[in-house]
């Protein structure tokens, strides 16, 4: 079985841990508990008959990615950069953050994820899509697109000729 490290990162309060919990245990908690440091857990998936173990690091939120210990990113096969669709401040620095992550881990698979889809209107989604070009919009509360996000990442990781960008 292949093991791959995936890092979930982003501004604080964007729903990284909720995304993590929804994917791992299919649960959602309305209460906001800030993550201290990092939480590590794993989930195994079978993609086209091949088993892959995703070891997921849920990092504590930071206003800027430069504040995250560099070593947390090292060895990651994919980065899930989460932002909150209802708080523009969480994606205002998105491009700077991605440039920084790319400097730490050149050519790593990065997925920009707009979370809390359930809190914004379709019109707002369109506007944010034009502005941020995300990979996917998710809702940890409803579970929408969470499985698709991680399955998509797993599929890309086991396929050696996949397009990472």
């Amino acid at each position: 079985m292949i093991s791959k490290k995936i890092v979930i990162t982003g501004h604080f309060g964007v729903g990284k841990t909720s995304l993590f919990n929804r994917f791992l245990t299919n649960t959602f908690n309305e209460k906001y508990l800030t993550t201290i440091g990092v939480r590590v857990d794993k989930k195994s998936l079978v993609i086209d008959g091949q088993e892959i173990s995703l070891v997921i690091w849920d990092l504590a939120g930071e206003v800027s990615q430069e504040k995250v210990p560099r070593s947390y990113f090292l060895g990651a096969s994919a980065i899930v950069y989460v932002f909150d669709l209802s708080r523009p401040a969480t994606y205002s620095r998105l491009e700077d953050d991605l440039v920084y992550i790319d400097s730490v881990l050149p050519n790593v698979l990065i997925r920009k994820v707009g979370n809390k889809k359930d809190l914004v209107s379709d019109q707002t989604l369109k506007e944010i899509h034009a502005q941020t070009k995300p990979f996917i919009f998710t809702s940890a509360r409803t579970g929408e697109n969470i499985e698709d996000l991680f399955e998509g990442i797993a599929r890309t990781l086991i396929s050696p000729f996949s397009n990472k960008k």
Partner: protein
Amino acid sequence: MGTAGSTSDTVLLDRLRDALLRKDRESVAEVKHIVESKEELSKRINPIIAAHMKELEENFPDAYVNVVQKIVDQRMRQKQDELINILYPRLGLLIRKYINNEFRLIRERIDQVRRNSFSFLRFWKRKTADEIIIDLRPSIVEEVYIISHESGLLLGSASSTETADKDMIAGMLTAIKSFVEDAFRRTDEELRGIQYGGYEIMIHNFFNYYIALAIAGTISEQERDELAEKILAFAARELNHDLQQPEPAFYARMQKELDAYFIKPYKALPQ
């Protein structure tokens, strides 16, 4: 006529007033002098204050002990955590000092007995006090992990006990290690161990991976050195190739090798 009469009345009245109030006026003047003179006032008030102070000093415990006790109790309840935080490290240090001292005394006594004994066995097999103590409570390697430095992904593991998910342990251990190394900005140094209670995680760092041993029990310096040598020997024999993309068979082989090398020898020991 009327005016002359009234003048003489006023004079008479003044004389009468002087005669009647003379003593009172003298007393008022004396009191005024005392009140206005600090020295005179102190002379009179100080003995009274001293007497009250003495009385308070003598009777305070009886009169106020309950009130004070109540206030102290209330404050202590309110500041319980603060008190514990203050006392805990000091108690810990005292206990540690006491235990270390007791161990030193035991070692000295054992060494003394050993020196004084005339048994022929002492010439046959000499054991130091340290070895005897370690014999009484042997350390046991319960788990061993080979973990990638950067990713924290598990490259191999073996265990004599049922623990939490090993991939998760490897990840969290790496996160803790990264945090410590990053937080103190000592890029040229690495975390070599974690201790909690009677348990120790011994970490041996290599270039792109590290080996972590979870050890239960007391470990002596000599034992630590022996384990370090064992880890080096194992790494030289089994991990002398690129570990970035190990073959699937590698994980199964590592588990077998780690178990045989680190775990099984301890299973044979009396528990």
